[in-house]
């Protein structure tokens, strides 16, 4: 049976067929027909955000916490340009989202019409793929194709630009099974010969380490299970990037903690000193590698990645395996078991003794205070008081983000939403909105800095309107903490524009939006205040006044290798010099 319908109705129908239950969006002239269709149905809920950037971040939070594709709907012109930051963020972190944008009618394209922008041109470099649909008959199959492209291979954001006349015109609807998905079929199975070579390397390695990333999370919960099985069975230590936290549980006995610029001492030294590095779904980002020519100088490197362009991009790989992490891990386990479950036990025990020595440095130790709340202490208490709960954490970007990664423990994948690649201040709040919509009963906390949080604070309106009990846990140091830290390290303590004057009264701000505000500045009151936040059934802004000049350690100064870590303030002033100074 052929079904004729308008383009606007097709959009809603195709979303339903793709199993979409939630759309984050903001209406405008060029998407009115789609909003009219959304109004006339009940299967898809629309969450009205307060800014299009927030719609995309909310869709990202939804996608990261569910493993499904997130959807955002924005209007033409400024609606689409506001979505650009979110799209770029999703591209950098490989998050599957579909953004639908309205466009001026086809006959007005190119005429500098009201709210016209070259949306496909602007978003071409910040999407995995995008489409301008000029004919209603193509619309439904393009939407189905868009979901396929977004979710398969290395996931990423896609955008469909839909002119208003295409939304009004009628054509035949192409159902999902009949839609051609095109030629985009990324390779998911890894090369067995190389997998076998990697297993052989694991059998004999003296100082092996797993270095895992967001690819494990993106591959799905099964991949995390397989990773846990492999790590437990081999007894090999494991570290992870910021994006990969939760794939292996923080309470697991082989866990070394996060690695990289603000990673743990033992994790970074294990990377530096290993003889076999097994990169699973990570991409040798510059936050991880530090100085390239001194990166893990003595190791054989294996790299499992679904994106061929990630392999040999910055670090030369000895054992490249292109494929989906889940598939490759399954094959690795199979081969390793079939060959007799061998590892170099004696050498491994020695390696672990070395790692234990590094752990004794206790790199996360900080100077405690009875009068001021240390940000690390605030996070330790948050961790202690929320442990074991059905908890999701989002963050903004900066010092608080690194402290959250260091001091909070993640036991499961999809529980940690943070802007890694792009480092988008303003990501965390709207992302927490998206997570809470996807998990209405769960505890969703956005660990924020006051500066980042202000970048998308308008979303208080969304949280209150939809009764989303998101907890905004703001570590308020009245500074752009990470900027200030770098100015101390690199620019002779000249703190150019890195403090926040005229901050709002966050309690009154919460109340102005109809939410609850809590302020806490005494460490003695902290536990009670956190409990008050957790027990409140509704959105809360928690203004946690913390030490203003705390620096985030450990730190690998830019331009230095893993074994040149700074562990505390004594080493910090003007620590970045020479070639490192031009790096970010």
């Amino acid at each position, binding site marked *: 049976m052929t079904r004729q319908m308008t383009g606007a109705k097709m959009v809603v129908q195709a979303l339903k067929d793709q199993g979409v239950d939630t759309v984050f969006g903001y209406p405008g002239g060029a998407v009115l027909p789609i909003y009219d269709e959304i109004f006339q149905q009940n299967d898809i809920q629309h969450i009205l955000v307060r800014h299009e950037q927030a719609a995309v971040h909310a869709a990202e939070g939804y996608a990261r916490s569910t493993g499904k594709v997130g959807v955002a709907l924005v209007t033409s012109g400024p609606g689409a340009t506001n979505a650009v930051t979110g799209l770029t963020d999703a591209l950098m972190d490989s998050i599957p989202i579909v953004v639908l944008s309205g466009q001026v009618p086809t006959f007005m394209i190119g005429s500098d019409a009201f709210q016209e922008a070259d949306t*496909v*041109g602007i978003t*071409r*470099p910040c999407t*995995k*793929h995008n489409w*301008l649909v000029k004919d209603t008959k193509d619309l439904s199959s393009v939407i189905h194709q868009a979901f396929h*492209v977004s979710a398969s*291979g*290395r996931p990423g954001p896609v955008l469909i630009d839909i002119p208003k006349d295409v939304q009004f015109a009628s054509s035949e609807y192409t159902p999902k099974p009949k839609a051609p998905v*095109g*030629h*985009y*079929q*990324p*390779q998911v199975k890894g090369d067995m010969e*190389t997998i076998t*070579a990697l297993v*052989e*390397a694991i059998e004999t390695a003296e100082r092996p380490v797993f270095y895992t990333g967001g690819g494990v999370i993106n591959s799905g919960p099964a991949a995390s299970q397989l990773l846990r099985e492999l790590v437990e069975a081999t007894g090999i230590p494991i570290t992870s990037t910021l994006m990969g936290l939760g794939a292996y549980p923080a309470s697991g006995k082989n866990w070394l903690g996060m690695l990289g610029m603000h990673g743990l001492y033992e994790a970074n030294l294990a990377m530096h000193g290993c003889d076999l590095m097994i990169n699973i779904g990570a991409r040798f980002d510059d936050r991880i590698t530090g100085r390239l020519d001194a990166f893990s100088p*003595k*190791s*054989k*490197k294996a790299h499992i990645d679904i*994106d*061929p*362009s990630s*392999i*040999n*991009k910055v670090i*030369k*790989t*000895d*054992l*490249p395996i*292109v494929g989906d992490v889940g598939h490759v891990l399954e094959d690795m386990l199979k081969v390793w078991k079939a060959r007799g479950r061998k590892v170099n036990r004696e050498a491994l025990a020695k390696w672990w003794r070395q790692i234990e020595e590094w752990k004794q440095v206790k790199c996360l130790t900080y100077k405690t205070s009875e009068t001021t709340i240390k940000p690390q202490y605030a996070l330790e208490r948050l961790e202690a008081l929320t442990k074991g709960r059905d908890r999701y954490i989002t963050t903004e970007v900066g010092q608080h983000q690194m402290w959250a990664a260091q001091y909070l423990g993640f036991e499961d994948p999809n529980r940690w939403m943070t802007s890694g690649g792009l480092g988008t201040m303003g990501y965390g709040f709207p992302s927490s909105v998206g997570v809470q919509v996807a998990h209405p009963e769960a505890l969703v906390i956005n660990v924020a800095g006051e500066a980042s949080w202000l970048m998308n604070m308008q979303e208080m309106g969304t949280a209150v309107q939809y009764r989303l009990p998101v907890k905004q846990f703001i570590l308020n140091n009245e500074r752009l903490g990470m900027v200030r830290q770098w100015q101390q390290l690199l620019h002779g303590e000249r703190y150019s524009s890195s403090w926040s004057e005229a901050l709002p009264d966050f309690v009154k701000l919460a109340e102005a939006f109809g939410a609850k505000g809590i302020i806490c500045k005494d460490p003695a009151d902290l536990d009670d205040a956190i409990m008050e936040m957790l027990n409140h059934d509704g959105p809360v802004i928690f203004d946690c006044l913390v030490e203003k000049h705390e620096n985030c350690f450990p730190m690998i100064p830019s331009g230095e290798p893993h074994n040149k870590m700074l562990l505390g303030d004594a080493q910090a002033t003007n620590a970045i010099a020479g070639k490192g100074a031009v790096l970010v």
Partner: protein
Amino acid sequence: MSALQIKKGSSKHSAYNLRPTFSDVQEAHTITVLVENEPGVLARVIGLFSGRGYNIDSLTVAEVDHEGHLSRITIVTTGTPQVIEQIKAQLGRIVSVRDVHDLTAEGSSVERELALMKVNGSGDKRVEALRLADIFRAQVVDSTLESFIFQLTGAPDKIDAFADLMRPLGLVQVARTGVAALSRGTD
């Protein structure tokens, strides 16, 4: 999607000893890319080059299969071996790209370019230009009493050589198509 052609510089004994460090030798490669002929596809390809800072020495594009909606883009680019590998991998992950081949790396190929050159002059220089054109098998496609336009096809270095010879003889304008290329043999 093209298969990844990474040399597996490893054996079961000592992979990292065999691992070559990234070379800094600049190589010119001719890369041919089969793409779906849809709006914006050329922008995707050249946007990749400009966005990631790769060189384009020459670029040609035209539809080659009308029914299949396919175009062929031929790009001559320069970079270290690592950059060339990156370029191919990055091209391969563009959704509208069907196929990527590195003609320089995959054996011998035929590369041709067409050029039009306007040479102004009179007297001996004019006669000499015509004589050299004959040697290069360039055709005269336009003529006035003081000018010729020569049409020349061939490999890029032949075109360069002809242009060098014409320069002292009154070369005033050059238009070149850029390289079109195919691998030799049945593949």
